[in-house]
């Protein structure tokens, strides 16, 4: 198996992360915001795995597994909240649901 | 070089056989169901009515490929392709005989699980893209059902993987020289079989189609060859799962006297027949019963199976 510069993988991870970040900031639809968060999480996982492979250790992959777990829990709760919100407020506009302002 | 040629020939053979088999299964299913339901079935065209296959193919190819105006076109077109692609791709890892495997992957089981989880999309997308409430309901049902049964399908295979110590399917077959895994993994087999029924959405788990409730579920709006792809894709899935059950639990090609490929074919054919017979034998449960059964009964059973298997393996090795 030929090698790959670590920087390639990390750069891709950063690009994806930045795209996810822009997605979170731009989109007003809560589902899209959640999707963008997933993109960011996935990019973080990619960075972990890449860094782990730099040393030929499984630790990076294990961190990816934990990120995966976290993402699954986050999506479950996040989507449940979205469904609730839609039932109650009849919208999934993040800007319209600002009841918890200070 | 000869290696590449061998692989290419193998791929071509597999594709040819599987696709024809799927066509052939249309006839098998009709005849078998008729037999079980005490009626004749198709018996006019050709010997034993075998030409009904040809008639069906002609019908499917020549019907108008109508795309309704209210659908989401790209997704509507893409959905039937997914099942063909994922199901056929999965055959790449199945060892038909010693050395006769297209991709001898170390993570074969994982690839199969990945492809089967991608396979969900055909029904979901078809249901959503049809822009029809029955289709949507079918798609929703499929999403929840596949999502649930995927979980314990993977879990039930982990017992086999633990015993074989590998994700490689050839290695799993080799590990069964001492004895088929159906014996130590009987519970695992049962769970995998039930999950396979769910994954292929065959009766009794055909909620996504459920003609009596949802007309035809997710493929209500499909016609012609697009419908044909779903139709054939389902039979390919049935064949795939039969082959996998053979590989995982019944020693694959292993067997006395007969050549390995013959053993493999016999066992797979046996499972295909079981699939079809079950359709005639069991009624369709209610939607919520399906989930209660899955999460409250099968999932704990799969976990128990995994824990006991792990404990036994540890105990033996120490």
């Amino acid at each position, binding site marked *: 198996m030929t*090698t790959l510069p*670590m920087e390639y993988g990390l750069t891709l991870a950063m690009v994806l992360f930045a795209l996810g970040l822009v997605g979170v900031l731009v989109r007003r639809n809560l589902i899209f915001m959640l*999707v*963008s968060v997933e993109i960011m999480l996935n990019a973080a996982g990619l960075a972990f795995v890449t860094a782990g492979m730099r040393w030929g250790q499984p630790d990076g*992959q*294990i961190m990816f597994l934990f990120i995966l777990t976290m993402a699954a829990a986050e999506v479950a709760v996040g989507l449940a909240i979205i*469904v609730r919100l839609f039932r109650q407020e009849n919208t999934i506009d993040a800007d319209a649901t600002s009841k918890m302002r200070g | 070089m000869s290696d590449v040629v061998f692989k290419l020939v193998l791929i071509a053979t597999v594709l040819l056989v599987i696709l024809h088999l799927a066509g052939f299964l249309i006839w098998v299913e009709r005849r078998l169901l008729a037999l079980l339901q005490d009626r004749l079935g198709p018996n006019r065209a050709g010997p034993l009515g075998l030409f009904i296959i040809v008639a069906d193919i002609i019908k499917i190819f020549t019907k108008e490929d109508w795309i309704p105006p209210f659908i989401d076109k790209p997704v509507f077109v893409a959905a039937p392709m997914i099942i063909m692609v994922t199901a056929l791709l999965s055959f790449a890892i199945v060892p038909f005989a010693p050395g006769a495997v297209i991709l001898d992957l170390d993570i074969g089981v*994982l690839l199969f699980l990945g492809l089967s989880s991608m396979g969900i999309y055909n029904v979901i997308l078809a249901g959503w893209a049809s822009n029809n409430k029955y289709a949507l309901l079918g798609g929703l049902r499929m999403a929840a059902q596949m999502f649930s049964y995927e979980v314990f399908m993977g879990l039930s295979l982990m017992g086999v993987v633990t015993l074989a110590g590998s994700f490689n399917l050839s290695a799993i077959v080799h590990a069964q020289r001492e004895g088929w895994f159906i014996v130590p993994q009987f519970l695992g087999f049962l769970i995998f079989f039930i999950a396979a029924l769910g994954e292929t959405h065959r009766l009794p788990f055909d909620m996504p189609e459920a003609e009596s409730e949802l007309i035809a579920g997710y493929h209500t709006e499909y016609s012609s060859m697009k419908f044909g792809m779903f139709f054939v894709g389902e039979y390919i899935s049935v064949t795939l799962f039969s082959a996998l059950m053979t590989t995982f639990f019944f020693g694959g090609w292993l067997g006395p006297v007969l050549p390995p490929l013959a053993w493999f074919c016999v066992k797979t054919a046996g499972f295909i027949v079981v699939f079809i017979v079950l359709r005639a034998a069991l009624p369709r449960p209610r939607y919520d019963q399906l989930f209660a059964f899955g999460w409250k009964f099968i999932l704990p059973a799969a976990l128990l199976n995994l824990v006991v298997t792990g404990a036994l393996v540890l105990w033996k090795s120490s």
Partner: protein
Amino acid sequence: MNTVFFIAAGVAVISTLLVICHSNAVHALLYLIISFSAVAVIFYLMGAPFVAALEVIIYAGAIIVLFLFVVMMLNLGPVATAQEKAWLQPRMWIGPSILGAILLALTVSLLWRGAPTAAGGAEVGPRQVGAALFGVYLLAVQLAALLMLAGLVGASHLRRRELLPESETKTELLP
């Protein structure tokens, strides 16, 4: 090797870009599947086949199905797509894009300060990952299990009927 990487990376970036731009939720999610699959290919290239498989099974196969499920359940239709289009004004992109670009420039400049170092020399398969996971990281696994439980409880609590507004609870079963 590098060619495959660049192709996969290109697919990942483009499809991700399409995800965040698309106004139709289902289409966006389909692009996301492609993006995740491309990332899975990259994992495989680096010698992490186990993670590659998990990326497909869990991310592409499960999490996105969940999203699709919710999108289909809410079934907002063409109105939502039009709404999305209205929200996605070009000027909306200016601030976030600048911020993202700065972040990207920062991190990439940090990354490429030194000479490139090789990664993925040897494959790290499921066996090593499993050994480490249930050895050194056993506690973390249990914590992750707790997290999942919390997620489960949270999600199941959120869908309780008595929390729903009055109109939702009055589901007439009999005429």
